[in-house]
C-alpha cells in the first residue's frame, strides 16, 4: 500500500510506460521515491478528478504533457548556489581555461538558467566571456524559455547578491540587472554567449567537445545504471584535461569513468587526466 499523496506505485509505473511509448520520454531510470512524490504533487496541484483523467491527459494532450515534464522534473535552482564551489570556478578552474583560444562549457540540466548567468558573470569578470560559449541544456522546453528570458524574481536578488559576494565577487551585483516591476532582467551581454537547447540526458548523445561540463543536482534523481550511462556521455563529451563538476552530494567514485579522472581538492570537480 502507498500513502505518499494519492498515487500508488503501480500508477507511477503505468505513467512511466505511457510516457515512454507515447512521447518517447524515458523515466524508467529515475529514482522512484522522488518521482512518485513529483507525480503525486502534480496530481493534487492540478486537481485531477481521477487517476484515469490524469493519465488520459498526460497520454493524449501534448500541451499538458509539456506541463507534466516540467512538473515531474525538479527545477529548483539559484544563482551562485554553494558559493565555495563558485569560488573554485573563479579562482582556479575557469582561469586555467584561459590557454584555450575558445572555451566551450556545457551546463547540463540548466533548468531556468540561474547557473548559466552565474557562470557568465564570472567569465565576464575574468575577461573570458568574449571567447566562451555556454551550452545550456535541459530536458524541459518550458524552463529553457524562462532561461532565455534572463529574468528572475527581484525578491531573490538579496540572497543571490550575498551568494555572489561569498563566492568571491567584488562588483556591485545589482549592476548586472535592471529592475523591472518584480523581476530582475539580466544584461543581454551575458545571454549573448549562451546557447539554450533541449537535450535529454537519458536518450540524446554527445553533441560537442567541452573543456568544462557542469551537471549539478541532476544525477541524484537517477538510479545507478542511468547515472553511469550519463557519466559515460559526459566522458565522451569532455576534452582531455577538461573538468567535470557535479553537485555537493554527487560523485563519480565507483563509476566506470572514475579511473581516468582526478579529483580537484575536496570539491566535487574532477579533471580528465587521460583519454
Amino acid at each position, binding site marked *: 500500500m502507498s*500513502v505518499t499523496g494519492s498515487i500508488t*506505485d503501480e500508477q507511477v509505473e503505468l505513467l512511466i510506460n505511457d510516457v515512454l511509448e507515447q512521447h518517447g520520454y524515458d523515466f524508467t531510470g529515475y*529514482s*522512484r521515491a522522488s518521482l512518485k*512524490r513529483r507525480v503525486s504533487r502534480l496530481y493534487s496541484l492540478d486537481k485531477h478528478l481521477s487517476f484515469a483523467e490524469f493519465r488520459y491527459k498526460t497520454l493524449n494532450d501534448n500541451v499538458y504533457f509539456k506541463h507534466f515534464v516540467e512538473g515531474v522534473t525538479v527545477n529548483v535552482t539559484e544563482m551562485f548556489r554553494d558559493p565555495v564551489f563558485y569560488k573554485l570556478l573563479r579562482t582556479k578552474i575557469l582561469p586555467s581555461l584561459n590557454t584555450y583560444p575558445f572555451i566551450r562549457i556545457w551546463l547540463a540540466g540548466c533548468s531556468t538558467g540561474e547557473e548559466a548567468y552565474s557562470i557568465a558573470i564570472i567569465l565576464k569578470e575574468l575577461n573570458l566571456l568574449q571567447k566562451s560559449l555556454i551550452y545550456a541544456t535541459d530536458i524541459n522546453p518550458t524552463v529553457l524559455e524562462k532561461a532565455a528570458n534572463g529574468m528572475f524574481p527581484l525578491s531573490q536578488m538579496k540572497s543571490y547578491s550575498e551568494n555572489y559576494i561569498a563566492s568571491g565577487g567584488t562588483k556591485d551585483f545589482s549592476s548586472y540587472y535592471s529592475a523591472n516591476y518584480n523581476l530582475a532582467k539580466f544584461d543581454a551581454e551575458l545571454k549573448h554567449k549562451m546557447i539554450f537547447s533541449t537535450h535529454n540526458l537519458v536518450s540524446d548523445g554527445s553533441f560537442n567537445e567541452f573543456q568544462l561540463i557542469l551537471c549539478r543536482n541532476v544525477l541524484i*534523481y537517477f538510479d545507478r545504471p542511468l547515472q553511469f550511462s550519463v557519466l559515460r556521455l559526459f566522458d565522451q563529451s569532455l576534452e582531455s584535461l577538461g573538468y567535470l563538476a557535479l553537485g555537493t552530494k554527487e560523485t563519480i567514485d565507483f563509476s566506470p569513468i572514475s579511473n581516468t579522472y582526478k579529483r580537484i581538492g575536496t570539491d566535487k570537480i574532477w579533471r580528465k587526466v587521460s583519454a
Partner: protein
Amino acid sequence: MKKCGAVVIGGSAGSLDVLLKVLPEINPKIDFPIIIVIHRKQGADSLLTDLISHRTNLKVKEADEKESILNGCIYIAPSDYHLLIERDFTFSLDYSEKINYSRPSIDVTFQTAADAYGDKLVCLLLSGSNADGVNGLISAKKNGGITLAQDPDTAQVTYMPEQAILKANVSLVLKIDQMADYINSLSETH
C-alpha cells in the same frame, strides 16, 4: 508487533539537546537503523554528524544518495536536501521545493519511509516550532507503523509535538528519559 525495520526521528528547534541525551543510551547492538532529520541552517554538515558520533558507539554518518541502509547505523539527513527512502532500502536525495519552509523536510522522510517500511516503521517527532512531520506521522500510522511524539511538557519548543498529538493521533507520547529504553526495547538483540 512486527520486528522493527527502522526508527526515524524528526525534530526542529530544541531537538538537538534531546538527541544528545537519548542517543548515548542507545544499545549499540540494535538490529535496525536510526534515521535522523533535523532542521538546521545550511552548511555546518559534518558538525552535527561529529557532535552525535562523539556521544555514541554506533556508527554515525551523513546519508549518501543510493547508499544501502544498514542495521545498527545512525544516519543524518544532509542539510539543504530532502532525504527519501526507496523501496529497496536505499537513500535518495532530492533538491525540490522546501516543504513547510524546510529542506530537509521531516514529512518527506517519514512519508517515503512509510512506503518503504510499512508496519515495520517507528517514527518519533521531537521538539520544534512548526508542524513539519505531522503529515508524515499520519502516513506512517496509516501504513501500520508506530508513531511517537515527545511529551510537550519536556520539550523546549512545544508546537511540533503538540501538533503531532492533536492531529496525528500518535501511538505513544514519550518523555525524554523514556525514549532510549523504548527504542532499545524494539530490538531483538540486546
